[in-house]
């Protein structure tokens, strides 16, 4: 069977492409830039009325003003400290309780139904209660953010502990490692990927609750700033506030991504 015998030879068509996401640098930024340019062009040409959408350049101007007047940091500082304290508290307690649920059958039997009952409560509905419990000042805001961060962290953590390879735990036992060593050197590192991906969600929820708490009673803070702008129908300032929140979200996500690449270097 030589080539000559088959006059109608042709290459086999390739059909194995696609379905494999690749990294495409700059696409994310491009989409942002295009949307902003579209809004700028629309508002300038009158295609989009100024009542529906503020002009991006005006929002930028407002932002610069905010920066120059020093008000940016007056609003940002209390917000960031509330977020830091509340989210840290909620995440720490959440990881702790989640690990306990993962390790002890009694704790699991006792707390899983409780967590299931707490999870769907819109935490913001409890703010009046928190104000009475923890005071009108920072305490109630910390508590609200901590509580909102706590529930998703617990669920992610105990699921992550459940997913640690039992074979590795048996290995630890077979080498006579102490219980504490097994928890510290096998269970916790093994649960780390799940805990970190849970934290991504918890921290996004923390930002949402931060704004909610500040809208309900704060003199300074991004939430208060947005609420004030909204009630005056000052769209430029409203959008400037929203942009700050988005940037905050992107930063938090970037921090977790950085932690992941550092801590989870071993992942295949």
């Amino acid at each position, binding site marked *: 069977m030589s080539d000559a015998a088959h006059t109608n030879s042709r290459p086999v068509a390739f059909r194995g492409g696609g379905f494999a996401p690749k990294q495409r640098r700059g696409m994310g930024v491009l989409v942002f830039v295009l949307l902003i340019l579209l809004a700028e062009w629309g508002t300038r040409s009158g295609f989009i009325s100024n009542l529906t959408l503020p002009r991006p350049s005006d929002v930028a101007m407002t932002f610069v003003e905010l920066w120059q007047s020093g008000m940016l940091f007056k609003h940002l500082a209390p917000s960031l400290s509330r977020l830091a304290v509340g989210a840290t508290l909620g995440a720490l307690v959440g990881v702790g309780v989640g690990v306990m649920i993962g390790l002890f059958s009694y704790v699991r039997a006792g707390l899983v139904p409780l967590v299931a009952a707490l999870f769907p409560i819109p935490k913001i509905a409890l703010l009046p209660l928190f104000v009475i419990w923890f005071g009108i000042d920072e305490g109630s805001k910390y508590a609200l953010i901590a509580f909102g961060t706590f529930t998703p962290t617990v669920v992610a953590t105990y699921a992550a502990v459940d997913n640690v390879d039992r074979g590795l735990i*048996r*290995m630890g036992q077979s080498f006579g490692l102490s219980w504490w060593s097994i928890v510290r050197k096998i269970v916790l*590192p093994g649960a780390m990927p799940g805990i970190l991906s849970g934290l991504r969600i918890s921290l996004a929820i923390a930002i949402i609750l931060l704004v909610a708490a500040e809208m309900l009673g704060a003199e300074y803070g991004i939430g208060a700033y947005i609420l004030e702008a909204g009630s005056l129908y000052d769209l430029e300032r409203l959008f400037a506030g929203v942009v700050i929140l988005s940037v905050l979200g992107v930063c938090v996500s970037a921090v977790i991504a950085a932690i992941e690449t550092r801590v989870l270097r071993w992942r295949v």
Partner: protein
Amino acid sequence: MDLRLAGVSHTYGETEVLRDINLDIPSGQIVCIVGPSGCGKSTLLRMLGGLEQPTSGQVLQLGTPPAGCLNPLTYVFQDFALLPWRSVRGNVALVLEDHGLDAAARAQIIDDVLARTKLTEFADALPKQLSGGMKQRVAIARALAVNPAVMLMDEPLSALDSQTRELLMDDLISLWTRQPFTAVYVTHNLAEAVRLGHRIVVLSRRPGQIREVVELTTPLAERAYGDAALEAQQQHLWGLMREEAAAADAELIHV
């Protein structure tokens, strides 16, 4: 230190897995346990190391483990069971950390076992960077580090391709020749059994009972790949196991 199984039987719920197993594991020898799939050979090994309790009967430790033995009964697992977040060195270090050794003593043990398993230059690699054969060598190094009285090997070469398996068998033989160790080696591969075993215990299908114990007298170092005498032994074992294996296979289909 010897191990003895005395009248060991085991059931999982309704299923009887092992029936009246009596077996001695003398020190300095490699005892291979072969049998059709599902005959309870891995269960038997888990009992030997105290990871599972028999329904009836006893697992006895005869004599005391030699001095300097950190973990008398030490496993080598089929799936290697390496911590993916620790380097080769870190994985070996893990099993030494709970024994109150100072850092210098630990480092000395680690360097020694890595050299014996020819892993010195890979000390800082992560498991994901290693091939299957290398991973199992790390697991063997880890087992050697605690200076075990008995090594319990659960199909240690079954996850590897056949070339790697040959290489690792050679490694195990040279390790044993240089410093004889006691081992219980569970496998379904008869070629491995006749290469590595001083005694080969043939189990029947479920419920597992001892069908025959074959003693091999040829020294390990003289058993080569494709040896005619070994081939004959392997034929004999296959003769014993063939019907059992076929029956065990059919059993699964009928379930």
